[in-house]
């Protein structure tokens, strides 16, 4: 029976950010070689993990949607690959039920109705931008969050140190 699958995996990019492309292309190739048809590739971007996996706090999420015959046993093939590949922190492959598709159509309908209301005022070019999903901005945000953290900590330490020295001086004066 022909089924629609979705596979999501987290790539470790702490050592080499280019790993995402190599892993993603490898998975795509596996799916296509075994008779699956790729429908959609969605890169969620770099995200902070809710809990650390293999001592990593961040990971790059990639989602691939594909359709295949359930006899081809593609999820098993993918699992074998994921387990061998040590760049993959976590993976999940599941069958997309029709309820999810209905829900997506509903959400798209809601968005479209909102867009049509907007497009009556706004030019057509802006409509395309609003169609693209927001996750694109997420990696930039996470980078911003990660980078300024270290200097803040250092500052805090400095403040503590100065306070301590002041206290010492006071005690000495006494």
């Amino acid at each position, binding site marked *: 029976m022909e089924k629609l699958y979705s596979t*999501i995996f*987290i790539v470790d990019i702490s050592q080499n950010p280019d790993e995402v492309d190599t892993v993603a292309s490898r998975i795509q190739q596996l799916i296509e070689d075994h008779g699956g048809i790729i429908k959609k590739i969605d890169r969620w971007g770099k995200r902070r*993990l*809710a*809990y650390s*996996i293999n001592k990593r706090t961040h*990971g790059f*999420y990639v989602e691939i949607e594909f359709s295949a015959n359930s006899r081809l046993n593609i999820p098993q093939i993918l699992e074998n690959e994921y387990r061998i590949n040590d760049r993959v922190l*976590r993976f*999940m492959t*599941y069958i997309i*039920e029709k*309820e*999810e598709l*209905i*829900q997506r159509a*509903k959400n798209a309908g809601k968005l479209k109705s909102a867009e049509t209301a907007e497009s009556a005022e706004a030019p057509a070019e802006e409509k395309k931008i609003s169609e693209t999903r927001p996750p694109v901005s997420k990696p930039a945000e996470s980078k911003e969050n990660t980078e300024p953290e270290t200097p803040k900590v250092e500052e805090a330490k400095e403040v503590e140190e100065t306070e301590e020295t002041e206290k010492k001086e006071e005690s000495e004066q006494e």
Partner: protein
Amino acid sequence: MLHRKKRICRFCESGDVFIDFRDEKRLVRFLTEQGKIVPRRTSGNCNQHQRQLAQALKRARHLALIPFVSDIPR
């Protein structure tokens, strides 16, 4: 005494058929501070949606979108 919340299933209200595990912001509302799944008697969800929600929460946990446990008091 505990404040009694309104017993209306949010998902039924909005007419949702499927609860997506990808938008963790929406899922977090159905977790306790420790990261446990809020029971139906508190959240007011209907049976169908509570089971869907549990599925979504577990998938999100596996993908490290929401924590298994958080804020453990010492």
